[in-house]
């Protein structure tokens, strides 16, 4: 079966002053998969996401998101991508309802639709009972979940989750990852997930891309990468082994 390409970059490059943050990046993401975006700090993951989203202009190279060029039509792209930034902030004196309503209004949703989606999103991240509290009274985990809810309100075709498990306890991390998996399966959402938790990523990602120093050194399904790097027929492997192998080579 031919998979539909959702995101495609060609020779995507971003240079800050003299530093190359993203170096001739070429990769594809297919429909309704979870693509794990891995790599050490400063590899250029966030920069790549920003370029795909049209928030940062690429120095050279092209991006296509569902046949739309984010440089030329950023609004169109932003309509079907939900983005959870790595250090997301909130308007602290709003509560969850107000915050989600604001997102819905920015997306031009009619009132009725918005209310339904907001209830759905809150139920999905299990926040209904805390939704009347002001955000300044939220714990880290609650904020993270509210962030996911804000993505869900848009009902996006694609979700960019930049380290959604940052600062969560192990149990909350598990639940967050479970939720992401569920969403991708139930809503057929394509998820681009950047994370440093390889063990978790291994469980839920369909394919991964490993980025080091701005270059994508590997991309593909995990068993395929394992075969390449760890030798044919290795029954048990961990993503960590693969990752470290690439990391040492680089």
């Amino acid at each position, binding site marked *: 079966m031919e998979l539909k390409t959702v995101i495609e970059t060609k020779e995507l490059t971003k240079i800050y002053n003299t530093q190359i943050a993203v170096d001739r990046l070429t990769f594809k993401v297919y429909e309704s998969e979870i693509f794990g975006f891995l790599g050490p700090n400063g590899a250029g993951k*966030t920069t790549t996401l*920003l370029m795909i*989203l049209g*928030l*940062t202009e690429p120095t050279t190279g092209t991006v296509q998101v569902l046949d739309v060029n984010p440089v030329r039509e950023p*609004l*169109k792209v*932003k*309509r079907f*991508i939900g*983005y959870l*930034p*790595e*250090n*997301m*902030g*909130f*308007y*602290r*004196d709003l509560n969850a309802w107000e915050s989600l309503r*604001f*997102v819905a*209004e*920015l*997306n*031009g949703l009619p009132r009725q639709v918005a209310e339904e989606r907001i209830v759905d999103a809150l139920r999905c991240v299990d926040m209904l009972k805390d939704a009347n509290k002001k955000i300044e009274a939220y714990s880290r985990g609650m904020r993270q979940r509210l962030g996911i809810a*804000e993505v869900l309100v*848009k009902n996006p075709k694609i979700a960019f989750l930049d380290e959604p498990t940052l600062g969560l306890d192990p149990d909350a991390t598990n639940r967050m990852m479970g939720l992401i998996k569920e969403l991708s399966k139930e809503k057929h959402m394509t998820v681009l997930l950047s994370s440093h938790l390889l063990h978790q990523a291994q469980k839920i990602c369909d394919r991964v891309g490993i980025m080091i120093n701005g270059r994508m050194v590997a991309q593909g399904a995990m068993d395929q990468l394992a075969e390449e790097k760890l030798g044919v027929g290795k029954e048990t492997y961990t993503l960590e082994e693969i990752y470290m192998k690439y990391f040492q080579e680089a």
Partner: protein
Amino acid sequence: MQGIKPIYKKELSDHFSSYRFLILFALIAMVSMITAYMVGMSISKELKDIAKPKFVFLMLFTSSGAWFSLVQFVAFFGPLIGLILGFDTINRERNEGTLSKLLSQPIYRDAVINAKFLAGLTVVAIMMASIVLLISALGLIMIGVIPGQEECVRIFIYLIVSIMYLAFWLEVAILFSILFRSVATSALAGLAMWIFFSFFISLGASAIANSLTVDANDNNSDALVLRTKIETTINLLSPMELYTDSTTIIINPMRKTTRTLVQMGMMEQLSMSRFSGPLPLSQSILVVMPYFIFLIAITVVFFAFSYVAFMRQEIRSL
């Protein structure tokens, strides 16, 4: 344009629920009451036994009573209101990480600054309108004179010009909040700008004019006129000067020109005063129009600066 309305609504409700707004409002209410009281007292004393001159009501705004008139107050401290309302609009959102989230929604980037400017403008308009209404009401009670139709029109024009003046400073503040990451820096930059435009330019203007026309003295009237010309031209760069010039003419019909005449002898003064009736409204508007347009023009220039700066800026979370 998509995005303006929700952001405008949110900004406005933020303003109204902030302590900053409450304190500013309290401050303004106090000032209006003080001015109205001061001026009201002195006017009713002065007018005790004489026939009421035309435009008594306008004197509420121009006559300086014990310390200052409203027009002077707004010219001097109005900029601070604009600056306070705008100095942290963009950089606060940037520092709190809400800006990248906001801009990842399907809205035009300039919708953010447009909406924020409009919200600030609304607040400024409400504040100025309430000052003027408050003073009028108090004045009505204290001096017991009802404003004529022309006076109402003049007060209305004064209100519009004042709102534009504050809007200019609001725009300056927004520009600095885009340019500087740190809230304290942008506040300081706004303050520096205020001092520069309000005081430094007018001081500098006379210094420059004096040094350019060293040979000016009582016997060299050409040079004296030139000196004044240079000075007024440089002064036109100062919003405070523009504002004071235009508002005094609108609200003080006895003044006919924004310029001060040079070299007035005794006889000249006498003959001048014989013809000093009030300037008709249409003429006042004509005199003021260029100033008003210039005020709008410099606001637009600053708006363009902030637009360009904001569109080119890298948006990252932290």
